[in-house]
């Protein structure tokens, strides 16, 4: 099993064999996410889905990081993007947040247009 740090996106290989939980740690599971607090640090850890189809979806979908309303769309379908290319503006908590491409590639699909509401985890864009 591989574990993804959901904050940094880095995938880790846990050591084989079951070790003890670190002393003083706090853990809780929420759906697909394990929250672990240890010595002042908090990690959100998710299991990497190894099935080919599911893994592909996870790699290529950009999901809404928070609920909000699409303010403006800044990119076009078919456009080549680099890591950091602004794709759209999400308005939440009365503030505007620019959603950027997490990786280089071709912007195949934009699922939302200006004015639409999105929930946490909704697909926003597909990048190949």
């Amino acid at each position, binding site marked *: 099993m591989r574990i993804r740090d959901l904050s940094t996106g*880095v995938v880790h290989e*846990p050591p084989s064999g079951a070790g003890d939980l670190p002393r003083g740690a706090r853990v809780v599971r929420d759906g697909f996410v394990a929250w672990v607090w240890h010595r002042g640090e908090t990690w959100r850890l998710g299991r990497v889905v190894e099935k080919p189809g599911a893994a592909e979806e996870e790699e290529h979908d950009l999901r809404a990081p928070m609920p909000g309303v699409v303010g403006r769309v800044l990119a076009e379908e078919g456009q080549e993007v680099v890591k950091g290319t602004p794709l759209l503006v999400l308005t939440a908590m*009365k503030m505007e947040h620019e959603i950027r491409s997490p990786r280089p590639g071709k912007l195949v699909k934009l699922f939302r247009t200006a004015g639409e509401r999105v929930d946490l985890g909704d697909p926003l864009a597909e990048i190949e």
Partner: protein
Amino acid sequence: MNLRPFRKVLVANRGEIAVRVLTACRTLGYGTVAVASEADVASRHARLADELVLLGPAPARESYLAASRILDAARATGAEAIHPGFGFLSENAAFARAVIDAGLVWIGPPPDAIEAMGLKVPSRERMRTAGVPVVPGTHDLTPEGIAKVGFPHVVKASAGGGGKGMRVVRAEAELAPAVESCRREAEAAFGDPTLYAERYLEHPRHVEIQVFGDARGRVVALGERECSLQRRHQKVVEESPSPAVSPELRARMSEAAVAAAKAVGYVNAGTVEFLLDADGSFYFLEMNTRLQVEHPVTEEAWGLDLVTLQLAVAAGEPLPPDLPAVPSAHAIEARVYAEDPENGFLPQVGTVLAYEEPGGPGVRVDSGIEAGSEVSVHYDPMLAKVVARGRTREEARLRLVDALGRTVVLGVATNVSWLRRLLQTPEFVRGELDTSLLGRLEVPAPPDPPPDVLSAAARLLGGGDGRAAMTAPARAAFPDPFADGSFRVLG
């Protein structure tokens, strides 16, 4: 202003500030009334008060901003005074007037003073007249008008506050898009798209003076707070005293702040915000006509209870004659926000699944959450303020770093670890702060999860081919999967 004694106080707010004010009222023996939206009926502030009135649905417009429902709540419970906290209706002059017209005591400044300071353009004019230094600015946002202010400048919502609806413009080409986006944000946040622009000082500090006035016309200054660490114009870490303020500078800034307050007939707690330039010159930014979020650093450094003073002044009492003239300690506050620092500080929502607050000598936590609390899109993402006091700045800093290291929030991502790393940067340790520091500071990345944390997560997330994880019940307080008992599971 009907400043007179009262026995029962309604606190028209939620979260940590409602808890803070209700606690002060209880300590002094006042009867307490909390108000809550449907989302908050079981929250800490709602449980703390003697009586609770349900205001309406979760959106603030139908609950904490619904002035008539709050007045009805006061009438129904026989509350004789209203404390607005900060945010929501606290700087709404019409609400303050309605409270007074209803024969209740308004625990805050006179409505005329709120109004005078509420709109940035007229308030700056007034300050200029009163001899308080102001930054050059204009509300003429045409290229001709802007030319008088120069670049860089900042475009702001005239009705704004709290950093919402602000854009820095460094060249003429950036002006039109900034104005458009700022206007939209101002309209959405305040219902008023009026903007103004002012000179942007390149590396100023944000230093503010706490002022207090009583009904007899006495106005005092209670030292400064350094609030230079801001992200998107939202304060993140505050301290008192400021590492940049000498007793001589404090005296000059206090004099200007008292003049500002007196110019509008100020009564009760207020804050005069200044930009402090490297050469020691300072400029009036705005006056916040309410208790500030960061009031605890003044309380801890000066040995005061500002909410208790607010209640006394509202009851018509004079300010105590023996208020301190100098700080007796150093205090630093870190704001815990539900946000993801590794992903553009995006606000986070969800259920707090586990929560622990630190304690110990010199450590104070003002919070309104607990395990089970919902963090929703309806309200501010600030969850708690962790404050540490020390004899020196370094003692306070070390206590705060350690306190944040004992703060546990699971279920909603927060900035706690990032705050700890921020407080350990050489820039913060040296106190070399300015309002743009957070924009250029390299805060170290969080550590990768160590192997034992990874194996704990792997066990928690289940074995098999990965499908087991896919069918797991959403958000179950995880049953104890380990037999050795060397850890704690919290739900």
